[in-house]
């Protein structure tokens, strides 16, 4: 492994192409941490945004007027404001209003840190889109299918869970794919509230080494690969869930 690292140091000395996150141990650790933070933040947000989408779409079909209004209000609020503004709002406005806890260095710190706020904010942001995406899928399920399930004595929750949602899921996967890809890319915004993800660490490295060009190219490729893996997985899933003759 060290041979490869040293080769990149030589590359820098010979050609001026400076990739310190490969040959410098400190920068390498920073970059690896940044990569893992991005992956972890993406996974957390993907998971919660899909959950929010599923639950939200179900609540939208509720027979209570106020439940529907509440969900619609949530969608409007989060879809019509920029995600960066939401992040700042959660971190600097809501974050400072919450109770504080004693931390291990003897001070008082807010109950939620920057990572938690980024996860919450981005999940809600993508969740708002997911609710609408799932709604489109639910509306695509033929009414006769739902009526047939009702005739068989299924409860409302059972119909949603066992009939509507599985069918809707197959319809919405392409749109959901799009939104989740966007979500992974939006995690770079967490940089603004100092979540140490890839863009943040890259910025730290380029301000120490003044190698902006190299870091930019690296970042572009890194996200290309990261999103490529997600898209590949989603496509496989889409194929695996395919019902012959449906959709």
């Amino acid at each position, binding site marked *: 492994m060290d041979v490869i690292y040293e080769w990149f140091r030589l590359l820098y000395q010979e050609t001026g192409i400076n990739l310190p996150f490969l040959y410098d141990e400190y920068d390498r650790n920073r970059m690896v941490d940044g990569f893992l933070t991005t992956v972890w933040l993406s996974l957390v947000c993907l998971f919660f945004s899909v959950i929010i989408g599923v639950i939200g779409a179900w609540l939208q079909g509720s027979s209570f007027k106020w439940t529907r209004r509440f969900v619609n209000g949530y969608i409007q609020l989060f879809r019509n404001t920029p995600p960066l503004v939401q992040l700042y709002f959660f971190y*600097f406005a809501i974050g400072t209003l919450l109770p504080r806890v004693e931390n291990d260095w003897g001070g008082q710190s807010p109950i939620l840190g920057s990572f938690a706020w980024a996860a919450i904010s981005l999940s809600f942001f993508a969740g708002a889109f997911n609710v609408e995406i799932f709604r489109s899928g639910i509306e695509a399920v033929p009414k006769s299918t739902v009526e047939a399930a009702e005739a068989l004595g299924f409860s409302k929750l059972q119909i949603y869970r066992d009939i509507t949602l599985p069918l809707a899921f197959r319809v919405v996967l392409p749109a959901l794919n799009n939104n989740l890809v966007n979500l992974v890319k939006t995690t770079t915004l967490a940089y603004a509230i100092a979540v*140490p993800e890839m863009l943040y660490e890259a910025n730290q490295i380029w301000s120490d080494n003044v190698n902006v060009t190299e870091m930019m190219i690296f970042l572009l490729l890194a996200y290309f690969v990261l999103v490529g893996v997600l898209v590949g997985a989603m496509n496989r899933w889409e194929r695996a869930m395919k019902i012959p003759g449906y959709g």
Partner: protein
Amino acid sequence: MKNRFLAGVATTLLASALSVAAASADVLDTIKERGTLIVGVKADYKPYGFLDTSGNVIGIEPDLAKDVADKLGVAIEYVPVVSSNRMQFLEQGKIDLMIATMTDRPDRREVVLIPDPNYYSSGTNILSLKSLGLTEWEDLRNKPVCGIQGAFYNKATSQNYGAEIVAFKGTAEAYSALKAGNCAAFVYDDSAIVAKTNDPEWADYEMPLQTIDDAPWGLAVALGEENFAQMMSDMIIDWHKTGRILELETKWGVTNTPFAKAMNEKYNQ
């Protein structure tokens, strides 16, 4: 209009062609003839150069500039400058002298004439809650420390002292995060932190550590003004020797910096 523009360009070209010759005419003569010394100072860097309630430029650096004007026996005029235009103003002859919190760096010495010795210095320190009782840099180990994205001392602070740097885009966000308790401390220029600790709103905070990465500040005159530079060198030595810098620090509420104290001792030996 066009003619006037062309005439302006022609004059500028002529002036720059003549400037080599004009340099020997000496800016000191020009100042005495004009009866005013025009000095570029900061107007947004409390307490080194800032505006009072009626809009006058005051602070440590304007006071130093006044000393120069008094020595020359002329009136003084302050021109507010910012970091991105201060050297250009000097090159263009808009100001005669620049005292504007400028860090003395070799590449800057190619553009303007910085007389030795340095008149001031600032380094890196932290702003933190008094109740935390931090006393040395090692105390920052494994604690979250706010910083500014792109500041050169972030890496040093985390590499040498094990602090976890939480870097924000601007100072406002960093101060706000410090106040909210997201970080144990804020690592920044000591000269700016000193000003914060004097702010009643930050009364619970202190600058507890020994300043590191000290970088000297240089005042500057235009290239080629050797006589003026020589005079300024003598003045700076005089400021250090008589303790004028220390006196001004006290006057403007800055704790005496180690640099000013050391220079004072050096020239009194």
